[in-house]
């Protein structure tokens, strides 16, 4: 009987095990930050949703080619902008040959990148290629050069986009900077939400632009051959003044001008690398589809760039000092004419241009965070850049890019021609490094057809190097020096950063297992910080008792002597757990400092582990929190500086009516 009864008692005391509650049944409200993110960005995505949406060739072209194709909207203009003031009318006979030269470079780059795509079909890009073939340091040069250029791509694209907008609506010209910044904001927001590879969003503007350009060029060229398209002879106010062509004496100077114009046109080939960065996003067989898309992209760019240059040369369109209306806009107006239908087509063209330029900025928003995360993963950029945010995108990288490009846009007043000189140096540096890396790859691995590949990539590297030097030299005084100075400085900075990470890592990892078996400190002293004799203090003391320390002390920092006196009286009358309360003098009212002094003293013997318990109110509403200061956080920060001092917040949940056990 007795035994039976005991068993029954035991059973009734033992809770009957049940299944865990469903995981979504979390009664706690979400943090304010999360709620804001849910509202702004949509619900958080799970890591397993990361799987790439595979893209077919037409969509992939739209996604990856917008940066490259959009260059045709401003490349001709930048060439003319250099030529017209220097050589005058001769500019219009030089622009087409320069364009062709640029396209030859483009053709070789595409040949080279076809090799890269095949050799690095998983994660490509200049950074990875350079890292694998030349080591980590040259890779930083490639990385920094590319990051710089991604920032510039965003700035140039949105500036050109706003120029296209103000060409159609001249009254908006004064708002160019806010418009550009707004474009950056929109694209950044879209990327934070995670529109990165939602292809259909991209397909519309890209193909819309292509269609408009093709229409413009075919109408223009047909009218040109019919002799129906007169060259502009009268020049509107605000266009660049004409220089005079140099005679024999100035041949050298003219050559320099031509090279400078060529360098400015170099902006056209930026974005070629985008496809090689995104090979994994293609449908099977990835590398073959990527190669085809690359060639299609190059051909489209070639047709549009060359066509626009031919038309501009024929029409003698002259760039405006302020960059608006743009060359493309002037050509559009001339070709489509002033009939209502022509006007309509012109506005469509401008709309398409704005859209694709904004999309081009978007390409950088996909590439910059990814590259930054690679570099951060190699400990060369702050770790925060490797973290995927709420919507699975590298949010910090997106924000960094948006901030940097917005600063640049504001600093240059959203003027494309002031940004262009900074542009392209970085891209060609990374082209050179990645092509040279590919050449090394061929020599080392000797895969099938490596001799041909080596020839292509070695020539590609050489060509990129030559173009890079031309760009650096001719544009040096116009602003390229900023990039040329910035890149080494940045690389030095990254190396310093890397050393810091390595030192930290080495220290943290040294004898970790041994450290875990080291003898623990002999004494454990718990200090409970008391501000008032109330439930939050009581709760902290209860918790302290659960820790069963060697010594338990309740401490009040008497920043306000009168209040301390009142608390002392109250403590004496009521007490809490018969614990003495220590009143600590704090004549300068620096509470955190006073606590730090006590902790230092207690842990001075080197054999004491100190726990400081800080009662903290947990509020149910955000504004409730504003009613209290956050001294407890300041205390925690100060105390954590002492070794073997540990801070624990003991929360008291306001509004829940803490039921007491006894």
């Amino acid at each position, binding site marked *: 009987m007795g035994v039976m009864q005991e068993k029954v008692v035991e059973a009734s005391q033992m809770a009957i095990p049940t299944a865990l509650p469903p995981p979504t049944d979390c009664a706690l409200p979400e943090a304010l930050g999360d709620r804001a993110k849910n509202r702004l960005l949509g619900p958080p995505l799970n890591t397993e949703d990361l799987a790439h949406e595979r893209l077919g060739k037409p969509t992939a072209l739209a996604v990856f080619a917008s940066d490259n194709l959009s260059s045709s909207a401003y490349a001709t203009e930048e060439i003319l902008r250099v030529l017209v003031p220097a050589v005058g009318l001769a500019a219009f006979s030089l622009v087409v040959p320069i364009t062709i030269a640029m396209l030859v470079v483009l053709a070789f780059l595409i040949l080279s990148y076809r090799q890269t795509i095949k050799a690095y079909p998983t994660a490509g890009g200049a950074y990875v290629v350079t890292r694998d073939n030349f080591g980590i340091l040259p890779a930083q040069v490639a990385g920094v050069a590319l990051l710089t250029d991604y920032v510039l791509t965003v700035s140039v694209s949105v500036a050109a986009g706003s120029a296209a907008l103000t060409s159609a609506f001249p009254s908006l010209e004064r708002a160019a900077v806010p418009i550009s910044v707004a474009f950056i904001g929109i694209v950044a927001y879209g990327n934070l939400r995670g529109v990165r590879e939602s292809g259909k969003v991209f397909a519309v503007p890209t193909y819309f632009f292509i269609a408009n350009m093709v229409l413009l060029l075919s109408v223009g060229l047909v009218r040109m051959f019919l002799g129906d398209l007169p060259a502009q002879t009268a020049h509107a106010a605000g266009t660049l003044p004409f220089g005079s062509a140099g005679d024999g004496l100035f041949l050298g100077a003219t050559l320099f001008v031509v090279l400078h114009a060529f360098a400015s046109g170099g902006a056209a080939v930026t974005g070629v690398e985008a496809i090689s960065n995104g090979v994994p996003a293609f449908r099977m067989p990835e590398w073959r589809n990527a190669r085809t898309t690359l060639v299609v992209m190059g051909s489209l760019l070639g047709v549009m760039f060359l066509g626009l240059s031919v038309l501009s040369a024929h029409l003698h369109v002259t760039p405006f000092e302020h960059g608006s209306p743009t060359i493309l806009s002037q050509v559009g107006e001339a070709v489509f004419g002033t009939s209502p239908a022509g006007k309509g087509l012109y506005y469509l063209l401008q709309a398409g241009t704005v859209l694709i330029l904004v999309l081009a900025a978007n390409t950088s928003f996909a590439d910059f965070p990814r590259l930054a995360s690679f570099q951060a993963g190699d400990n060369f950029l702050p770790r925060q850049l490797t973290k995927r945010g709420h919507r699975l995108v590298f949010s910090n990288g997106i924000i960094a890019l948006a901030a940097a490009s917005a600063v640049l846009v504001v600093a240059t007043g959203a003027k494309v021609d002031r940004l262009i000189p900074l542009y392209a140096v970085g891209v060609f540096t990374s082209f050179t490094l990645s092509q040279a890396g590919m050449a090394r790859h061929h020599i080392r691995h000797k895969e099938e057809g490596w001799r041909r590949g080596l020839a292509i990539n070695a020539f590609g590297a050489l060509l990129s190097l030559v173009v890079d030097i031309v760009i650096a030299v001719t544009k040096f005084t116009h602003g390229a020096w900023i990039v040329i100075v910035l890149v080494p400085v940045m690389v030095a900075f990254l190396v310093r950063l890397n050393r810091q990470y390595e030192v930290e890592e080495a220290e943290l990892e040294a004898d970790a297992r041994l450290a875990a078996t080291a003898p623990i400190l002999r004494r454990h002293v718990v200090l409970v910080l008391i501000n008032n004799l109330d439930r939050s203090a009581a709760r902290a003391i209860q918790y302290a008792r659960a820790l069963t320390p060697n010594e338990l002390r309740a401490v009040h920092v*008497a920043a306000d002597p009168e209040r*301390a006196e009142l608390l002392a009286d109250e403590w*004496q009358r009521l007490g809490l757990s018969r614990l*003495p309360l220590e009143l*600590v*003098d704090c004549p300068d009212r620096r509470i955190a400092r006073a606590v730090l002094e006590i902790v230092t003293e207690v842990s001075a013997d080197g054999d004491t582990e100190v726990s400081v318990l800080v009662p903290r109110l947990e509020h149910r509403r955000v504004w409730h929190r504003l009613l209290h200061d956050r001294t407890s956080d300041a205390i925690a920060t100060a105390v954590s500086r002492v070794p073997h001092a540990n801070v624990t917040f003991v929360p008291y949940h306001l509004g829940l009516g803490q039921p007491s056990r006894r």
Partner: protein
Amino acid sequence: MTCIAEVRWRQRVRVSGRVRSLRIQPLAGVPTVQCTLVDVTGGLTVVFLGRRRIAGIRPGTRMVVEGIAGEHDRKLAILNPRYELLA
């Protein structure tokens, strides 16, 4: 007058300093007033057994105490000293 750093165990001393901290004992506990007296050179414990509060002794109070240095809670302490509050 001795400076606190020079106080030795079992010595009769007279020291002057500031009350840095004061221990308040609840009524239920053993009646004791215990405080830490510090000067620029160091600090020691001053204990008044059998009393709950001493008027005038608060955190920050300056006073002179005189007595034999002993031990309390494994720390150097003066028990039941003669004391004199300073203005």
